[in-house]
């Protein structure tokens, strides 16, 4: 049961992240250097789409898993999201009031995964 669910998640992740890597590698090699607005806006959304796709894959994985995996993952997801939002909000206010260096928004998702990694081992029950 869980094997099929896990395999689906891995395939979906590989597809979405593969697309993400390809687009970014092409950008690094200058494939989109001549692009002008509004094309640049559309391109930015194209780059963001696989990230949203991967989040969808994660939520589908949770939905298709059994009740324990779903409950523990949901708990971890909520904790990681809450902590990430708190940290990003705090940093935002530090930027406004304390002239802290700018934190790019594209780093919020990697930050979320980092927080997930740090918090997940401590969330071991569904109570």
């Amino acid at each position, binding site marked *: *049961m*869980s094997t099929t669910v896990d395999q689906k998640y891995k395939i979906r992740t590989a597809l979405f992240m593969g697309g993400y890597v390809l687009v970014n590698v092409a950008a690094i090699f200058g494939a989109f250097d001549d692009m002008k607005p509004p094309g640049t806006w559309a391109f930015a959304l194209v780059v963001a789409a696989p990230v949203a796709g991967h989040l969808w894959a994660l939520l589908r994985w949770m939905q298709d*898993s*059994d*009740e*324990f*995996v779903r*409950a*523990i993952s949901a708990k971890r997801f909520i904790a990681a999201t809450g902590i990430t939002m708190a940290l990003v909000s705090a940093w935002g206010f530090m930027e406004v009031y304390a002239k802290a260096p700018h934190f790019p928004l594209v780093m919020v998702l990697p930050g979320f995964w980092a927080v997930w990694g740090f918090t997940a081992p401590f969330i*071991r*029950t*569904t*109570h």
Partner: protein
Amino acid sequence: MKNRLKVLRAERNWTQEELGKRVGVSRQAINALETEKHDPSLDLAYRISKEFGTPVETIFTNPYQPS
């Protein structure tokens, strides 16, 4: 929630993986039930009850029932 899953499983020589397959959940889920890290849904409790052929109350302790 206190339960007799591990004992009942041992009586039948079933692994966690095997019991998981029988009731349609992962090995991790069975482990979480046995170590009291997860309370089963009513649906899962009934599936487990059917598999062992014994009422839910004889597998999972009702914490609200005075002993």
